[in-house]
């Protein structure tokens, strides 16, 4: 079967800062891939390049077998199928939870407000926030905000989900509720790319772990391989600090 994401020798520089130095990845359908690495190793930049929030300097990206740099590709349609969850939630503060969720289906998918609302409510229910539909984000706790953000991404019925440190901005007691939602998505067969420092969760949920160092994938393998038998001193060093 074709990989759903294929990245080939991706490079990204910010002026003279060479952040990604040739990254190649293949991700299969329903696979949960986790990226770990030190701060500044380029994990966020990698995710952002794959849906072209950041324009890569060179390299090729195929989503579902299509090269997304071809001129006939509408990147908005590609992004609509890739949900993204951010460390800082980035909920729209001038909209209620349900409006946050309905926005993209109505604007991009052009479905009726009625239908979008029904779907939105069932998604809120799924993340355990049915009663918060009409709250504004400022009235929600961090964990609730992040769950609304996940529901917002899911409302577009994406085939792939990106998570960029979804629990790093949360108080410890709220991490669990977000990870539960993610674990459920993984079990439902969503393709997920996760940047996270929650090693316990990665060990449970990820099919594959990639260790990024200085803009390259230094090491990859099953969680068991990486956590228990790291090959490189850098990896061992990093794991020693976070585990």
């Amino acid at each position, binding site marked *: 079967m074709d990989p759903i994401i294929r990245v080939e020798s991706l490079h990204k520089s910010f002026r003279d800062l060479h952040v990604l130095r040739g990254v190649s990845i293949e991700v299969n359908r329903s696979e949960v891939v986790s990226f770990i690495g030190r701060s500044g190793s380029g994990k966020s930049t990698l995710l952002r390049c794959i849906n072209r929030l950041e324009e890569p300097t060179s390299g090729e990206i195929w989503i579902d077998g299509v090269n997304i740099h071809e001129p006939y590709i509408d990147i908005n349609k590609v*992004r609509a199928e890739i949900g993204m969850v951010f460390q800082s939630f*980035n909920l729209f503060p001038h909209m209620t939870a349900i409006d946050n969720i309905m926005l993209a289906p109505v604007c*991009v998918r052009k479905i009726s407000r009625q239908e979008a609302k029904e779907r939105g409510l069932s998604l809120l229910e799924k993340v355990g926030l049915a009663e918060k539909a009409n709250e504004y984000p400022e009235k929600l706790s961090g964990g609730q905000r992040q769950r609304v953000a996940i529901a*917002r*991404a899911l409302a577009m019925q994406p085939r792939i989900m990106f998570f960029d440190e979804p629990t790093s901005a949360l108080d410890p007691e709220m991490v669990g509720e977000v990870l539960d939602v993610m674990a459920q998505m993984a079990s439902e067969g969503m393709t997920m790319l996760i940047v996270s420092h929650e090693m316990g969760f990665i060990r449970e949920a990820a099919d594959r772990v990639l260790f990024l160092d200085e803009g390259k994938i230094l090491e990859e393998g099953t969680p068991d391989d990486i956590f228990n038998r790291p090959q490189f001193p850098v990896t061992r060093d990093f794991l020693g600090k976070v585990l």
Partner: protein
Amino acid sequence: MATSYSSDALQRFSRKHIPLLYYIRKPIFLLISLALIIVYACFLPNPQETSAFFFYLNLSVLIAVLVCWCVIILADWEKPEYVKMLVAFFLLSMLALLFYRFSGADWARLIHFFFNFPIMKGSWHVLFRGLSTTVILSICSFFSCVFVGLLIAIVRSFKYHSVNLLITMYVDIFRSIPVIVLMVVLFFVFPFLGMYLNSYLTTFTALTLSYGAYTAETFRAGLETVSSGQVEAARSLGLSRWQTLRKITIPQAVPIVIPVLTGNMIAMMKDTAIASIVATPELLKSARELYTAKTSPTPLICAAIIFLAVLLPLVRLVNHMERRVNKSGPHY
């Protein structure tokens, strides 16, 4: 044990002297000094009977003492707010009274010249026609400069460097040219280039160009308050640039921008008065025509009052909106 203290601490924490201000601030002292000041004011020497030097010396001393007395109360945070209000009012009315009594102005003549409202009979309609020109001109210019400003701010937010260079040049140049100069150039110089603008169009164009630059800056500042994370979240959901702008960025910028925009509107309305130099029959121009016709400056005063009556509510509105935006502390 809990209430006792070591005498050493009492000594360490004590002042050497109780400050003079402590006694001065006592109500009894303030009341007595107030009485003295009022007596002093009543027995001020008559300027006709003493030397000018002696009179002005006394007057200055009185005013200095008066101001000091008020400042002592106004700067005392323990005095209640209504006392301070009264004191401020008292200070202003004392100063007004002294000015009225001793300034040597010829009040009757003054009123005859500047506040001779009866001569305005039958001419008010001229002023109100002027006002309507002013209002229509400002509203048209306002909408066109909002359009220009928003367009510029949006184009600028796309960060095309060469285009932004041009925009920056436009904004900087037109923010540094006085509106009056712009109008004169448009009206008197452009005809030599084969471009004839009548006085209305001149005013409209000058105000649009000049305030368009300010408005562009206002919108830019507003759009920049919306964090890049918001834009990224919207784009990652598949919204286009334009949808992101319409649904995410602009709605968040508007509450911040509106008060500033209304402030611009007020400034622009005042600046329509400049248009009288290119013979636009707006409020000031009408007032000046009446001034010539009636050989009395009263119409000018009337114009000032009309401006005040129209703009003061707008100024209050801006205040109110700003308070709503940064909901903090009292505003006066």
